[in-house]
């Protein structure tokens, strides 16, 4: 893939041009009505770019950075329908100013199967190429390095300095929970402060989950990753007791309701799913049990979870196991809230095979 470096000025200009282009061109135009129109970050309801490349993962499960970078770049182009990466990223992150920060919400809760650093690195490279300052890119999750997740054990280097790409958890002394911005979950009558890394510290969020089976909601992928944006187990005592309600009933509809808060729904501009490796049994805490060799790019987390669910259940059927779809009612609930498309027939799955 060619290097698409451009100056910051060009990026800001192209960003403006791209936004203007949506308004006048039919191709790639963001949805403004009907299903999933409530989510302002969901520019293309139902569209998922699925780029696969078996050469991106070795037999010993090591990722090949160059191939991963190519997959991420291709997925972003395929999703946006743009010809150049700068136009594609500018379309996804409109109006970005040089001083604006972009958050990358990774998932490192299980270091045996985290969002792979190589995938995050590919996104970072894309952002840098369009002029986002390194230090304005923040890779984050709930915990920096602890029992409940670890960047270090997942292959990342923590960085809270004023140089380079930042990488830290909400538990870091410079972060914490935002008491001004609350996420509501009406079905269980709960309200949570959100990570400042999801609210005031960034202009946009890029969601980078990893595909795992989950004993409660069947799978964890795009939508469930937002549980890492609120205090659950790390909440004060009484709040923690209440927070256990977030997992009752297979998280349906709590998972959908959590995402249906503006701080997540509107600020998230891209969901980039890491399904290079995934688990279909013993998740979410176990090692990878399969390889889909795939990267998914979408603005529709509901559609991406449907794609992830299919991968997990296909493998489970191959192994003679009960599918987990029956537990995954939260996906339909999310569609019901207008957060995306769960109807497979209405989805626009754009598959690209590399390698």
């Amino acid at each position, binding site marked *: 893939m060619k290097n698409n470096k451009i100056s910051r000025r060009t990026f800001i200009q192209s960003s403006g041009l791209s936004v203007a282009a949506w308004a006048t061109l039919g191709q790639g135009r963001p949805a403004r009505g009907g299903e999933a129109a409530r989510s302002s970050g969901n520019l293309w309801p139902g569209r998922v770019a699925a780029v696969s490349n078996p050469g991106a993962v070795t*037999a*010993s*499960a*090591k990722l090949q950075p160059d191939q991963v970078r190519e997959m991420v770049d291709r997925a972003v182009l395929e999703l946006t329908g743009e010809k150049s990466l700068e136009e594609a990223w500018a379309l996804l992150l409109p109006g970005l100013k040089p001083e604006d920060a972009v958050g990358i919400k990774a998932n490192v*809760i*299980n*270091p*045996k199967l985290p969002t792979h650093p190589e995938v995050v690195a590919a996104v970072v490279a894309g952002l840098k190429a369009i002029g986002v300052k390194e230090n304005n890119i923040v890779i984050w999750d709930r915990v920096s390095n602890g*029992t*409940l997740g670890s960047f270090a*054990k997942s292959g990342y280097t923590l960085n809270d300095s004023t140089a380079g790409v930042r990488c830290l958890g909400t538990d870091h002394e410079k972060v914490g929970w935002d008491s001004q911005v609350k996420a509501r979950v009406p079905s269980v009558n709960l309200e949570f402060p959100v990570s400042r890394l999801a609210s005031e510290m960034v202009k946009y969020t890029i969601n980078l989950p990893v595909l795992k089976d*989950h*004993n*409660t909601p069947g799978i*964890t992928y795009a939508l469930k990753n937002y549980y890492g944006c609120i205090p659950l*187990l790390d909440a004060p*005592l*009484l709040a*923690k*007791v209440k927070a*256990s309600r977030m*997992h009752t009933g297979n998280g349906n509809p709590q998972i959908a309701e959590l995402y249906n808060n503006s701080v997540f729904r509107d600020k998230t501009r891209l969901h980039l799913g890491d399904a290079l*490796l995934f688990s*279909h*049994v*013993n*998740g*979410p*805490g*176990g*090692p*990878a*049990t*399969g*390889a889909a060799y795939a990267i998914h790019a979408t603005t529709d987390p509901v559609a991406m979870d449907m794609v992830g669910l299919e991968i997990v259940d296909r493998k489970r059927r191959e*192994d003679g*196991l009960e599918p987990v779809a029956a537990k995954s009612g939260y996906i339909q609930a999310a569609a019901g809230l207008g957060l995306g498309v769960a109807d497979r027939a209405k989805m626009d799955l754009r598959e690209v095979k590399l390698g």
Partner: protein
Amino acid sequence: MRRAFCLVAAALLLAGCEAWQHAATPPDLKALLPESGEIPGFERDGEASLGQGLEGLARIIDGAAEKYVKFSAERGIFQDYAIVHERGEIVSVAIYQARDAGKLFREGYEGRRRPEPGIGQEARARLELFGATALDFYQEPYYVELSINCGRPEAIEHLRQFAEAIARRIRTSS
């Protein structure tokens, strides 16, 4: 007023329970862990984590805790071991004390497996992993899970060494 009293009472009760969980954690679970160097070439990587009950386990293994508690796990200890001089390979050890460790072994895992004779009351290797190797066994009242982020043939031998060491310690402790 009554509501405020109830809330304070509940908070004190819960705080007491939590404090009890830490204070009452018996040392024997830690004693089941191999020491650094006990398995040649492996050193403890960081501190062990202890969790009790659903909440305590969820603090360490998040959403996975529900499954273990459902199958009778009461508490667990978690410790990683790194291969000395070889970057990146980690053995993860999880030991659960359960009311019925056999049930946890039989019903807690549904993937493909191969029996591994001679360890605990029953042991098996998990076969479907990608780039990793795992082995689990039970010896009442403990259920033990071991994994290494390596899919090479010798990986299962590393896990067997850990499993045998832990099984010996369980026998000694009882």
